[in-house]
């Protein structure tokens, strides 16, 4: 039970930090007057990079695939959102630090929730003919 709580807290922490950190980095690096499509694309690439690095950092503490996949997804989605918000909301000021951190955290936690829902669906015996990779 203690370790289950530890890993749930670890997942929450890792995904929220990856999401928040990526969104903050994206709003700091991408100019607000860029076209939104470029903001989103670069945000996604930055997110994938941050997600991979964050996964390597969190793996010794919280596990391998169970951390790597939701953290990478959190960073990628957060990066895309921040890239769009930075270039689409206000062409002069862009996204504030606080907005980026809050939005990135929400994106990270939403990605973790998606992962947990898919996990609830897939866990257990797989259909050998259809569901196996």
């Amino acid at each position, binding site marked *: 039970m203690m370790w289950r709580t530890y890993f749930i807290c670890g997942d929450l922490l890792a995904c929220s930090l990856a999401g928040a950190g990526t969104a903050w980095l994206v709003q700091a690096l991408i100019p607000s007057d860029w076209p939104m499509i470029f903001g989103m694309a670069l945000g996604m690439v930055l997110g994938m990079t941050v997600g991979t690095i964050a996964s390597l950092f969190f793996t010794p503490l919280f596990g391998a695939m169970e951390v790597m996949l939701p953290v990478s997804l959190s960073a990628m989605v957060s990066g895309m959102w921040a890239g769009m918000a930075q270039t689409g909301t206000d062409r002069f000021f862009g996204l504030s630090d606080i907005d980026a951190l809050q939005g990135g955290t929400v994106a990270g936690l939403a990605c973790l929730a998606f992962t947990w829902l898919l996990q609830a669906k897939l*866990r257990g015996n797989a259909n050998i003919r259809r569901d196996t*990779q």
Partner: protein
Amino acid sequence: MSTGAQKKWDAAARAYDFVGAFGEERRWRPHKTKLFSSMEGKILFLAVGTGLDIASFPPGQTITGIDISAKMLEKAAPRAAAYSGKMSLTQMDVHEMTFPDATFDQVYTSCTFCSVTDPVRGLTALVRVLKPGGQLRMFEHTGSRHFPFSAMLNVMNPIFRNLGPEINRNTVANVQAAGFKLQKVTNIFLDVVKTIEATAPIK
């Protein structure tokens, strides 16, 4: 012996326990313990690594552990010596195993076929060393069929391949391609981390 793979895993041996001994092992140990609890007869444990899995073995078994990396086996030696059964360690490549045909009753793997250079050839070699109808029990991570994880694993694979394992392999299909009869696949995390149970063909 594949010297490229040997060098890669010799280099990885230094940091292997740092990366895997705490979070990863605590996540996976209950599932590994359950899988390994069916150990009986003459057992081959493939890619024993630094021996982290030995703590999950049931006591009193006779186990032969092999690994391609001498550095990994150096780290595994004290863990194998502390095991409450008979455990021997040998440096060997799964593609070039020197065991006679039909030597083992069971073969166990743990995160092995993400790293074997030619997985179908490696699995075919296991068919040879297993007795007819012998059991293959695997704890493996694979690719995924579910978006977006399927795409992410494919994109990230070139990076991880250089660090150590491949992360998008279709190990279940490889098991079948090698001639094993699939019995059961159990998803542990998504459809990525799983246990695979199969039997060698009865000739």
